[in-house]
C-alpha cells in the first residue's frame, strides 16, 4: 500500500521534482514544480488524515529500525507543519511562476530557483519527520545550504552580503549543534529522540550537549539577540524566497526546539532554560516590533516583524511548566500561532514583493495611494496584519487566546501581558504600513514585473491565516495527536 510509505514519499517526491526540474530546463521547470507541489499537497493532506485517524506512527526507512536505522516519526505536530509547508509552498510556487519568468539566460541564478526551492522543500519535510537528533543536523544543513543559495539568487551585492552572513551564522550554528550532539551521544549513547526521552538521566555532559544544541537552534530560529542574520537575509532575498524563509525555514529549527524541550527533555532538566527562552521571546517581541516600526523599507519591516513573531513561539516554554491545563493550551496555542504566522507572513512577503515590483522601489513612504491602484495587495496587508496583531477573527487571535488562557490558567499574568502588548506593538507597525497605503496620493506605478493574476496568491494566503480561526478545532485535534501531548498525557 503506497500510503504506508507516506513519510518517505513526502521526502522522495520533492527530491525527485528537484532533480527533474534541474534537467527540464527553465521553461519546463515551473511545470515540474507545480506538479510536484500539487503532489505534496495531496500527500500532506493524506498524512494529516492518517495521523488524525490512527495517531502517530514511526516509519523505518529502508526497513532498518532504530537504533541502527534512521526512523521517521509522523505525529500530529509534524503533520501540521508539513501541511503548512505544503500550502505555503504551493502558494510560493504559483507566485514564483510569474516572478521568475525571465528568458535572460545570462542572469545570475537563472533557472536555479526551482531546483533549489524543491530541494529546500525536501529538506524541510525531512526535518519535520525526522526522529533522530543527528539526522536533524543533516536536514538543518541541507535547508541552510539551499536557503543561503536562494538568498543570493539575485546576485546583487546586498544579497550576496546577506547570504554570506547567513552562511556564517549557519556554520556557527551547525558546528555548535554538532558539538552538542557529540556531548549528548557521549553521555547517553543514543540519538533517537524517543529513546532519548525514555533514557535521559541527570548528567552534566548530556545537559551541556542539549544546551548547546538549543543554543544553536535558537540561532537558526533567529531569536533575539541571535537575530542578526535574519533581516538582511529575508529582506534582500527574492520575494518568494523571503516568504518561504520567514514562514517555513525558521519554523523548521523551531520545531526541533519544541520537540527537544517539551518531548525529549524532562521538565527542569535544563534548569531555568525554559524561562530564559520565554524572557528572550518577550524581548524579541518588543525589540522586533520597535525595529519594524522604524524601518523605511517594506521588506525590512516585514523581516523585523518575523523577528517579533518568532518571540511568541518561545513563550510556550515557560507556560508549559505551569500545570497540565496550561501545558495543553500553550502547545495548542503555539501550534496555531506557527501556522497562522506562516500563512500570514508568506502572504505579506509576497504582497510586498508585488508592491515593490509595481512601484519599482521599496520605500514605504513613497507608496502613498497604493490602496487605490492595488486594492488586492492592500487588502492582503490588512488581513495579514490582523492575524499578526492577534485580532479576532483570525488564526492569530486563536493563538493569542489560547496562549493568554494558558498564562491565566497557570496564574502567570505577566506572560499574558507580554502577549497583549505584543499585539499592540504589531498593530503599531502594521498600521504604519497600512496608513501609507491608504493615504491620499496617486502612486505612479512601475511596470508590473509580476502579472496581477498572481497577486491573488498572497491574498489567498493571508485570507487563509484569517479563516484559520475556524480550523482551530482541527489543529486542536492534531495537537492531541502529537507525541508531545500524548507523552505528557494531557488534552486541550
Amino acid at each position: 500500500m503506497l500510503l504506508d510509505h507516506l513519510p518517505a514519499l513526502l521526502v522522495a517526491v520533492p527530491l525527485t521534482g528537484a532533480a527533474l526540474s534541474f534537467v527540464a530546463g527553465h521553461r519546463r521547470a515551473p511545470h515540474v514544480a507545480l506538479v510536484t507541489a500539487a503532489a505534496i499537497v495531496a500527500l500532506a493532506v493524506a498524512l494529516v488524515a492518517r495521523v488524525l485517524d490512527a495517531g502517530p506512527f514511526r516509519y523505518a526507512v529502508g526497513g532498518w529500525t532504530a537504533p541502527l536505522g534512521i526512523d521517521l516519526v509522523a505525529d500530529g505536530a509534524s503533520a501540521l507543519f508539513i501541511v503548512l509547508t505544503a500550502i505555503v509552498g504551493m502558494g510560493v510556487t504559483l507566485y514564483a511562476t510569474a516572478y521568475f519568468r525571465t528568458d535572460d539566460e545570462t542572469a545570475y541564478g537563472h533557472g536555479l530557483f526551482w531546483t533549489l526551492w524543491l530541494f529546500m522543500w525536501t529538506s524541510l519535510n525531512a526535518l519535520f519527520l525526522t526522529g533522530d537528533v543527528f539526522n536533524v543536523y543533516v536536514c538543518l544543513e541541507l535547508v541552510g545550504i539551499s536557503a543561503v543559495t536562494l538568498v543570493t539568487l539575485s546576485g546583487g551585492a546586498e544579497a550576496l552580503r546577506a547570504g554570506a552572513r547567513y552562511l556564517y551564522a549557519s556554520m556557527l550554528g551547525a558546528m555548535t549543534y554538532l558539538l552538542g550532539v557529540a556531548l549528548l551521544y557521549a553521555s547517553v549513547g543514543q540519538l533517537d529522540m524517543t529513546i532519548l526521552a525514555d533514557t535521559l538521566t541527570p548528567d552534566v555532559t548530556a545537559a551541556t550537549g542539549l544546551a548547546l544544541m538549543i543554543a544553536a537552534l535558537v540561532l537558526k530560529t533567529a531569536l533575539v539577540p541571535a537575530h542578526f542574520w535574519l533581516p538582511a537575509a529575508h529582506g534582500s532575498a527574492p520575494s518568494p524566497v523571503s516568504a518561504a524563509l520567514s514562514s517555513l525555514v525558521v519554523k523548521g529549527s523551531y520545531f526541533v526546539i519544541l520537540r527537544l524541550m517539551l518531548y525529549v527533555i524532562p521538565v527542569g532538566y535544563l534548569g531555568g532554560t525554559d524561562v530564559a527562552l520565554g524572557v528572550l521571546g518577550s524581548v524579541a517581541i518588543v525589540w522586533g516590533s520597535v525595529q519594524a516600526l522604524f524601518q523605511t523599507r517594506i521588506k525590512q519591516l516585514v523581516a523585523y516583524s518575523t523577528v517579533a513573531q518568532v518571540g511568541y513561539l518561545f513563550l510556550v516554554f515557560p507556560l508549559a511548566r505551569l500545570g497540565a491545563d496550561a501545558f495543553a493550551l500553550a502547545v495548542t496555542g503555539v501550534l496555531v500561532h506557527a501556522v497562522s504566522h506562516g500563512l500570514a507572513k508568506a502572504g505579506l512577503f509576497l504582497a510586498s514583493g508585488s508592491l515593490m515590483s509595481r512601484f519599482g522601489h521599496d520605500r514605504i513612504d513613497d507608496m502613498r495611494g497604493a490602496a487605490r491602484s492595488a486594492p488586492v495587495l492592500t487588502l492582503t496587508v490588512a488581513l495579514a496584519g490582523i492575524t499578526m496583531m492577534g485580532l479576532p477573527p483570525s488564526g492569530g487571535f486563536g493563538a493569542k487566546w489560547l496562549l493568554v488562557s494558558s498564562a491565566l490558567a497557570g496564574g502567570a499574568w505577566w506572560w499574558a501581558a507580554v502577549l497583549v502588548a505584543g499585539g499592540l506593538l504589531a498593530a503599531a507597525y502594521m498600521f504604519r504600513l497600512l496608513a501609507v497605503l491608504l493615504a491620499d496620493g496617486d502612486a505612479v506605478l512601475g511596470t508590473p514585473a509580476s502579472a496581477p493574476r498572481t497577486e491573488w496568491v498572497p491574498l489567498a494566503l493571508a485570507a487563509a491565516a484569517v479563516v484559520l480561526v475556524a480550523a482551530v478545532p482541527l489543529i486542536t485535534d492534531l495537537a492531541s495527536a502529537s507525541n508531545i501531548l500524548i507523552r505528557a498525557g494531557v488534552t486541550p
Partner: protein
Amino acid sequence: MDTIGSLIPTGMGALRFAVDDIAVPFLALFAFLWLVSGAHAWATTPARERGRLFAYYVPSAIGGVGVAVAADAISFYLCFALMALPAWGLITHTRSAESRRAGAVYLTLTVIGEALLLAALVLMATGGDSLLLSEMRAGAAASPHAALIVALLLGSISLKIGALPFSGILPLSYTYTPAGAASALAGASVKVGALAMIRLLPADAVGADWVSAVMLLGLITAFGAAVMGVLTTTPRAVLGYSSASQMGLVLIAGGVSLGDAGATALAHGAIVAFALHHGLAKSALVLGADVAAHAKGRERTVALCALALPALALVGAPFTSGFVAKYALKDAIHLLHGPVPEAVYALLPLTAIGTAALMLRLFVLIRRETVGDPLPARPPVAPWALVLAATAIATWVWPAEWNRHAIESVVSPDSLWTATWPALVAIAGWQAMRLIPAVVRRLDGVVVPGDVLVGLTALLGRFDDHPRSTQVAATPTSARVERLRTVLTATEGRLLAWTTASTILVLLAVVLVTLALS
C-alpha cells in the same frame, strides 16, 4: 407588559390636563392676555416680519395657556418649556446686538431654571410614586429630599419671577421685545412663577426659618427692584423692575404658603389675587405705554390719563385691583407669628412707596420719550382698552373665597388710609428731589437694564459670537520620537555587526549551558 407603571410617561396619552379651582383664574388670565397681546403684536408688526414673530409667539402662547391646566409633571414641564424657550425669539426679534445679548441671558437663566424645575419634579415624582401634580405636592413633604425639593423649586421660581439677584432678567426681556409680545411676557409669562408656587411648593415640608427666609427675600426684592427701576432710563426697563418688585410681594406669599396648611390656603388666595391684578395691570401699562408713545397732542394726554389707572392699581390705591390683592396678602401674613413675619407685615405698606416712585418715573420717561420706530399702523387702542377694563373690574367681580372676604372687609377708613399714604409720601419725596437736581442727574441711568446680569452677557459672548478656535493641527512626528528612532536604529546596527552578534551568540550558548547545569 402592556401596562407601564405610574412613573413612566406613556406617550401623549400620559399628558393630563385638568381645569380645577386653581386653573380657572390662571387659564382665564393667560388666555386673555396672550390673545389680546397677540392682537396688538399683529397690528404693530410689519407684514413681512409677522411670520418670524408669530413663529415664536404662537408656541409660546400655547405653552402659556397649557401650563395653567397642566395636571401632571410632564405636561407642566412641557408647557413651561414650550412657553419659556420660544420667548427667546420674541426678545431677539429686532436682531440688534443688545437684543441678542439680552436673549442670551434670558435663555441661560431660563434653561437653568428649567433644569432646577426638572430636578425637583423628578424628585417629587419618585417620592410620591405619581406623576400627578396634586399628589406629587402632597407627597413631597414626606420625601427624604423635601428640603432639596423646596430649594430647587424656589431656585426655579426665583429665576422665573426675577427675585433678587436675578431681577435683571425681567427688564432685559422686556426692553428689546416688541410691545405686544412684551405685554404677554410681562402679564402672563412671569405669572407662571406664581402658578408654580401654588401647584408645586409643598406646605409644611420645611421649617419656619425657610418661611422667614423666603419672605425676607421677597421683601428685599420688592424694595431692591424698585430702587433699581427708578434709576433706569427707559419705560420698559422701569416696567421690568416694577414687575420684579411686585413679584417680590408674590414671593412673600409664596413664603407664607410654605407654612402650615391654614396659612397656605390664604397665601394661595393672595397669590391668585396678585397674579390677576398684576398680570392685567402690567399688561395694560406695557400696551398703554406703546400707545402713548406713538400718540400725539391731546390723544397723548388722554392716553397718559388712562395709563394712570393701572399705575394706581400697582401702587395699591383705594378701589383698584392692587387694593384687593394687597389686602389678601396682608391677611395671609397676619396669620403668622414671629419676628420676621411681623416685621414683614409692618414694612409691607412701605413697598408701595417704591412702586409709586416707579410709576412716577415711568410717566416722566414716557413723556420724555420721542416716537421710536415707524410702525405700519399706529398701535391699536382696542386691545389696550380691553385690558384696562379688565384691570378695573377683575379682582372685584372674580367669584372666589379670597376676594369675597377681601371685598367685605377692605373698605374701611383704616385700610383706605393705609392704601393712600404711601403714594402721597412718594409724591412728596419726588417733589423734594427736584430741589437737588445735580444728584438726580448723576443718578439718572445709573442702572442699565439687566444690572448684574449684564456681566453674564460678557461671559456668554465668549461662548456665542466668536468662540476661541480649537483647531488642532496634525501633530508632526515629534523630535523625541525622532531621537528614539536614531538611538534604536543605531543600537540595532551595532547588534547586527558580525563580531558583536556572534560574540553575543557564544555568550548566549554559555548562558544556556550554565542555566542547564544550574
